């Protein structure tokens, strides 16, 4: 038994090392002047000082965060309402909703961005705004992940029975849904949101094609920096990883605090 656990610890360590190598190398590369031999030379933090004093970079970080949060919130609300209506009133339509929500899996970023541009670029409505286009495109891209997560969560809590129970106690269906069902699928919502954050943070194609350089996010900034200074680009990469890590940590901390609260009230 002991042997087995030692083996699994070793495998875990190997996987961790494998996954962390690119990040560690990038960190080392970003804090030295040059790394042409075995040992890097000339320790310096000037890349980071430059980045955090560069208003363009800070704006790109803010844009990236905003561009990920807004589409996620919009998609979650739309999926929640769509699944509520189909599960309670039109269960037969659920398979069609599923098909529609799964279609974006198959659409490549280039095709999606070109299609959106050809449809809306000449429009006189708000849809011709490049940022609105981009947010809309992100909503489409993350739709399958959010849908799948929320649907699995709803199935796990047996939503129709919970709503029926709440109805018998005098609640309306919609009140029961938001007061009883949604708090119980919060974990599923959080997990799919994190997945969506990862997808949006990793996007380059959509933002490059739809927003161009008018609203550069961290990826665009990284791409532009790579052309001029590779050590600074490593620093940008490290900051991107750090921001993703912080967002994930905050969400998981909130989740664990909620779970702790439950245990403490025992």
């Amino acid at each position: 038994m002991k042997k087995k656990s030692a083996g699994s610890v070793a495998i875990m360590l190997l996987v961790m090392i494998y996954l962390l190598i690119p990040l560690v190398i990038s960190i080392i590369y970003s804090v030295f002047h040059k790394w042409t031999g075995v040992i890097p030379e000339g320790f310096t933090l000037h890349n980071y000082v430059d980045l955090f004093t560069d208003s363009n970079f800070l704006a790109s970080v803010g844009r990236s965060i905003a561009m990920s949060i807004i589409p996620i919130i919009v998609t979650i609300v739309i999926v929640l309402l769509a699944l509520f209506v189909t599960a309670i009133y039109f269960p037969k339509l659920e398979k069609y909703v599923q098909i529609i929500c799964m279609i974006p899996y198959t659409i490549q970023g280039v095709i999606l961005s070109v299609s959106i541009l050809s449809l809306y670029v000449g429009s006189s409505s708000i849809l011709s705004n490049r940022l609105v286009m981009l947010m809309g495109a992100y909503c489409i891209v993350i739709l399958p992940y959010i849908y799948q997560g929320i649907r699995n969560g709803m199935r796990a809590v047996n939503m129709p029975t919970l709503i029926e129970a709440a109805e018998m106690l005098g609640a309306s269906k919609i009140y029961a849904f938001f007061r009883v069902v949604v708090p119980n699928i919060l974990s599923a919502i959080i997990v799919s949101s994190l997945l969506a954050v990862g997808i949006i943070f990793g996007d380059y194609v959509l933002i490059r094609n739809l927003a161009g350089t008018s609203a550069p996010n961290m990826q665009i900034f990284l791409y532009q920096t790579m052309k001029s200074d590779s050590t600074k680009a490593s620093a940008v990469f490290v900051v991107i990883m750090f921001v993703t890590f912080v967002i994930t940590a905050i969400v998981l901390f909130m989740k664990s605090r909620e779970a702790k609260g439950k245990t403490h009230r025992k």
Partner: protein
Amino acid sequence: MSYIRFENIVKSFGSNTVLKDINLEVEKGQLVTLLGPSGCGKSTLLRCLSGLETVTSGKVYLDDRDITDVNPKDRDIGMVFQQYSLFPNMDVAQNVAFGLKMKKVPNAEIDKRVKEMVDIVGLSDHLHHYPSELSGGQQQRAALARAMVTNPKVLLLDEPLSAIDALLRHSLQVEIRRIQQELNMTAIFVTHDQDEAMVMSDVIHLMYNGKIEQSAAPTEMYTEPVSKFAATFIGHYNMVPVDAFKKMTGVDGEGTDVAFRPEVIDISTKPVEREGCVTIKGHVGVSLPHGNVLRYAVMCGDHQIDVDVLFKKATIIPNGTDVYLTLKQDDCIFL
């Protein structure tokens, strides 16, 4: 006028008619059981009363009010579900308080009533436990408290004990009956377990294939089944075709089958002559203990007749022994 009335209720799901012209009445303060095998329509009938299912045709009345088209939340009916359906994100107190909050009862009153009700169901020590921290029995008690705390006009229990182990189920049967009588609450209980129905009910409505097969008090239902289905579903009746019974005993009657219960038969290794009784000869096929009762499977020609006797080790008749079964003609029901 009865407190609850179902008038000509028909319920169809597509081409499948689940309830076929049901007429049923329930008096105030009674605990009535809808008993029947799976798929007979008992839960659907209950859901038609709760409003969770709409009727295809017919009327439902509660306390002289037509509630056929009333929204479930406005019917003032409490319901306990098979799978408890407690809200996982709320502790016992919050679950029980939910219905009172929906009725906008003042907070102080809510606290008082929640404590009272939780006390009645014996969960005072678990007031702030979450459903995941409770056993099946405790969850069902919490669900019961949640359904009763609003003092509904009628309490519906949809197979609430079927997911609970036998020992706990028996104690909860007694408990639910006690609470229902203590609060003088009108309740409709759905089950497929005839023993449960016998223990708990004032009246049993036996359902079969979307219809009420028989409505009677438990003792009457047990001793006077009106059909072959009622006889086989309630208790454990021996069913022998009339022709075969005539060959065995010389007694004839109207109907296709003769039904008699295993415990009304006397078994002995010598023939017994008694007035008003018939005797059947056979041999013991096998004997199996059923708690305090020993059940002999006696082979009489091509037919097996079960005989129940109180279990006494000293008097066990070995398998293969020739035996004589004696039973009163009055105990034989021709169906």
